[in-house]
Every structure is written in C-alpha cells, then in structure tokens.
C-alpha cells in the first residue's frame, strides 16, 4: 500500500474513533447538556419544519412530524446506544466466550461426574419439584447415592468412572434451536407483550447475540487445546479448571477482539430496527430508530433522514473500521 493511502486509512480510523467517543460522551452526558428543548415534548408551533436558523430558540436540526426537536432526540438517542446496545454486546461476548470456551475445551467427555453425584442431583430435583412420592423416592435415591459413594471409596477404579456432562452436545443443541429462526423474529416474539424494561431488552439482545462469539471461541478452542503449552500445563498437574481459565481461554478469545465491534454494530442495527417498528418500548423513548420511523408520516423530511440516518450510518461504519483495524493488528 502506498504511503498516502496508508495515511488516509489512518485518518479514517482516528475519525471513526473520534465519532464513537462523541456518541459515547453524548449518550452518557445527555441529561446535563444545555439543549433548548426537552426530549419527547412536542413543539406544537413547529411541526416537521426544516432547520431554519433565524427563529429563537433555534431548532438547529429542525423538528420531526410530531414536533420534537431533532437535535435533542439525536443526543438522547445516543443514550439508547450506550445503555442498551453496548451492555448487550459486552454481555453477549462474555457469555459467548464462557459457553463456547467450555464446550470447546471439555467437549462431550471432559468432565465426569461420579454416579453418586448424578443420583444426588436427581434426588434434589425430585424433592424440589415435589414429584409424586416425594419422600420415599428422594430418600431412596439419596441412599443409593450414599451406597455408590461408599463403593467408589472401597474399590478405587482403574479408569475414570461416572457419566460425563455432554457440554458440546448441549451447546450445539441450543445453537441449533436459536438458529432455527432469524434473530429479528425471536426478538419480535419475545417483545410482543407489554413494553419491556431496559434490562429486559438487554437480556433479549444477549439471548440472540451470544451464539456468534460462542461459535468463534469454540472453533478456536478446539485448536488451542491441542497446543503444547496447554498439554504442558496439564502435565504440570494444574487442575482442569485453572488450565481452562488461566491458560486456554485467553488464547481462544483472541478472535473476539476483532469481532466485538461488529457484534456491537449488529446489535445497534437490531435495536434501532426494534425502535423503528415501535416494538418493545413505549413510543416516546427517544432513539435514532424511532426518529427515522417518523419518516413514514412525512417522507419528504430530508433533515430527519440526514441527521438520524447519518448518525446511525456513521456509527456503524466507524465500528466496522475499528473491527478491521483490530483484525489487522492481531
């Protein structure tokens, strides 16, 4: 690549970072910014007006068809990005890394639980659910568990006994289940009830977003667990949990660094699609998607499209750019 092209990529990268920081700052500081109009309050004298910088107080970016100030809505809309999409992306990456890491590292036979343990778990479930014959069945199961434990103490087995937890099959099964339907549809179905709280929306987005990082971490973990340093850690006698958490997992999470920005971009798109469709949240919560949705009433409002659409597109492109740069560095 020539030097000038390289420099222009760098300029673009830093511009992108600057824009993302601006969105972050306005999302965090929106309630304390000196805006002339409160959010979600219509200015009934000025409905769907293009920006005119002569009046006072000035609607810097015009008003939407419901008379709300576009600039205020944009600033408060950044709040949705910071309070919903960002935590959802972080949590989804975390959950995905742990689940995919566990499935890849232990597979279907890595963790064996002795028979006594399984019997005790079944007894506890029987007791907790109060299934028929609560006392007799759970007591006899506990007795059998005790017997199995005593037997295993008496006769030390030559090979590992017990029944393994099928981590990998469980993981792949859940992934197949969630992948059976596009994620927009899953979110729509779960959001079809009454309006959701912020934490519920975040949980919903995490539910549909975690499979992607999990699949990457699992694929990487299948390679990493065969590497000499993991074998060395096992040979040194470290417990399996410690090998997994301290040695294998940090390596297996390497690809996430580059894909986390893309996952965040996907969630911002999903969140604003929900706001655009008016699903899951009360209609007066300011967000970019909601603002763009007003275009359906007034298709000629170029200032709404330019400002809200521009903010959305800039954010997504900046995140893509960030992901690509991180991919190059790793």
């Amino acid at each position, binding site marked *: 690549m020539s030097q000038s092209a390289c420099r222009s990529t760098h300029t673009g990268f830093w511009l992108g970072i600057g824009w993302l920081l601006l969105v972050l700052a306005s999302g965090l500081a929106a309630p304390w910014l000196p805006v002339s109009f409160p959010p979600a309050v219509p200015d009934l004298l000025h409905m769907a007006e293009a920006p005119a910088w002569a009046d006072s107080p000035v609607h810097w970016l015009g008003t939407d068809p419901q008379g709300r100030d576009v600039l205020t809505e944009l600033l408060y809309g950044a709040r949705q990005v910071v309070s919903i999409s960002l935590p959802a992306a972080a949590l989804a990456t975390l959950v995905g890394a742990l689940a995919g890491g566990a499935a890849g590292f232990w597979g279907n036979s890595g963790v064996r639980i002795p028979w006594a343990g399984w019997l005790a778990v079944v007894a506890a479930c029987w007791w907790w*659910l*109060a*299934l*028929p014959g609560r006392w007799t069945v759970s007591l006899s199961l506990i007795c059998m568990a005790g017997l199995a434990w005593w037997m295993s103490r008496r006769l030390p087995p030559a090979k590992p006994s017990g029944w393994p937890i099928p981590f990998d099959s469980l993981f792949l099964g859940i992934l*197949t*289940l*969630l*992948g*059976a*339907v*596009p*994620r*927009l*549809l899953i979110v*729509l*179905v779960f*959001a*079809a*009830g*009454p309006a959701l709280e912020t934490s519920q929306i975040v949980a919903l987005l995490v539910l549909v977003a975690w499979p992607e990082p999990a699949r990457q971490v699992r694929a990487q973990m299948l390679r990493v667990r065969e590497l000499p340093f993991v074998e060395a850690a096992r040979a040194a006698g470290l417990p399996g949990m410690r090998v997994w958490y301290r040695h294998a997992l940090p390596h297996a999470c390497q690809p996430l660094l580059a894909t986390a920005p*893309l996952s965040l*971009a*996907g969630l911002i*798109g*999903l969140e*604003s*699609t929900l706001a*655009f*469709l*008016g*699903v899951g949240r009360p209609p007066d919560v300011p967000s970019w*998607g909601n603002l*763009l949705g007003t*275009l*359906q009433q007034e*298709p*000629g409002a*170029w200032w709404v*499209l330019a400002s809200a*659409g521009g903010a*959305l*597109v800039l954010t*997504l*492109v900046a*995140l*893509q750019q960030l992901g690509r740069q991180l991919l190059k560095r790793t």
Partner: protein
Amino acid sequence: MIPVGRWLVVQVGRAGLAAWAIASLVFLLSRLNTEKSIDLLLDETDSLHSTVLNAGEMKATQRQAVAQRLGLTEPLFYVTRTQHAGVVSWHWHGGHNQYHRWLTGLSHGQLGLSFRDGQPIGPRWWAALAYTLPLTGLATLGATAGALALGLALAGGPQATGPTGWRAALHLLLTGLQGLPLFALALGLLFAFANPDALNILPAYTDSATDEPWHQQALRLVLPVLALVLAVLPELTLLLASALSHELGTNYATTARAKGLTNKQLLRRHALPNAMLPLLTAFAGLLPTLVAGAVVVETVFALPGTGRLLAEAVMMHDYPVLVAGVLLTALVRLLALTLADALYVWADPRIRLVP
C-alpha cells in the same frame, strides 16, 4: 467420497426437530400467563367502546367469554403442578389440553385461532403469502444474479495488487452496505425514489389497490425487491469474490493460464464452479434472512404480506399468529437447507448421495 445421504438426513432431521422445539417453546411461553393475555386483549377492545356500566361484573363475564372462545379455559399442558397451602400436587390431563389440541390441529394443517377476532389464521397467512412469495422469490433471484455478476467483476482484476480503481470503490461500497440495517436502506430508497419532493418515479404505497392493472402492481414491487437485494447482496458478493481470488491462486489456475486461457475463460470455466461451494452454504441462510427482512420492508413500503402480518400481530399481542410465523419460518429454513444440500451434490460431482 463423502456419504452425503446420511448427513443430509441428520441435517434435515435436526432442523425439523429444532423447528418443532422452538415453535412449541414459543407456544407454551405465550400461553403461560393466560390472565395477562386476556387483559391485553380486553384493553384493546375497551379503548374501542369504553361506556361500560357495572364494570367489575361485566369484566368477569367478558373474560370468561373470551377465554371460552379462544379455548384458554383448558389446561396448558399434559401435566400441571398446583400449589395449595404449601401442598404441591401434580395432575395428569390426557389429551384435553391446549398444547395437544394445537399439535393435532397442526397435523391437520390448521394453524389455530387468532386472539384478536377468533378467526382461523390459516387463510390470512395464505393471502399474505401471495404478496410475500413474489417478493422473496424475486429478491432471491436478483441477489443470486447480482452476486454472480459483481463477484466475477470484482475478482477479474489483477491479483497481485489487490482491487484498484472502480473495483476498490465497489468493494468499499459493498463493505459499507454490509453493516447497514435494512430499515435504513429501505427508508433511503423510499426517500430517493418515491418522494413527492425529489424523484417520484416509482410508486410506493399500496392503498386498497387490488383492481389495478398488473404492471402497476409489479412496479410497486420494484423498490421492496431492490431493498431486500441490497441487504443480502454485499455478503454474497464479497464471499464469492474472496473464494474466486483464492481459486485463482491455485496450481490448476496457473496451469490453465499457461495453456493460454484468457482471464475471463479461466474465471468462468475453471474458478467459478470451485468457488460455488461456500456460496451455497450462504444460500441456505438467505431464505430465512429474507423472511425476516420482509417484516421491515413490508412495513416501510406498506405491502400487505406476511411480514406486515407479523408486525401487526406483535402490536396486537396476537400470539397464535406469531407462533405460526415462527413455525413457517423454521420450515422455510428446513427447505433452504435441503435445497442447498441438493445443490451441493449438483455443484460438486465428487459428492455422491450414498444411501
């Protein structure tokens, strides 16, 4: 030789099982709290005629009537767990439960009754599919053709330096488009081509226009199809372009060049068949994506298709319509997987169907 036969059965079986499981899960979750769904329904109707005297008594009879009409009085599942003063007991209901009725209805091709008006939802789905099938079908064709053309064009340049000139611009444009949410894309198209203040060359809104001549109706489909194509095109094109440039670096491509083939011949006759396989995998995911995209596109362009039906069901808390949507989308995915497997066998003669 790869035993595709058994693999295909496993793949399709797994997808079918997942379709059944997710639809059942959504069905059971949506009816877990019957009281709340009846409340939501009554709230909607209350806002229509709100002059009710003696509200409490009316409400109770009304609730009973609604529950009776929609079959919500029966127990939800084969067994129920009840708790009375700390004593937990389990009841077995046999076939007299909502889930069993839903399953038997499905096996007879009945999708259930709408919560809104108590009408069967099957006919509504068929009417909506008459709009959505042409939309998604045309979008699939357009996206495939566009991806082939653009992918070949992108990979046709000199290999050593990477894309230059218009190819670099196209590459940049496609990567930019890739991350854009579909609704922003559709709004942009609406603004650019169906706007009374700017270019108004393509009609957008269908307002009870069933008696229009067919070419007018076809014109209305142009923008929605374009939006769907633009939403899925970048991924397919970039995938194909990278697969093609990988194939061009292989030994057989060098041999073909040494024989004196032109770049075009090499690309079409030798590289393209080998680069098709990753494209087919992406193709299996294309149909479900388009079904989900129809929700957004039909809302933006006001088309009365399945996507609009789903979006309205979400607004009206009409869960049976949503459950049917989940089931049908999962079945579409099943179909796409089977189709992709069949195309795999066609594209790669080394793969044989082994019984």
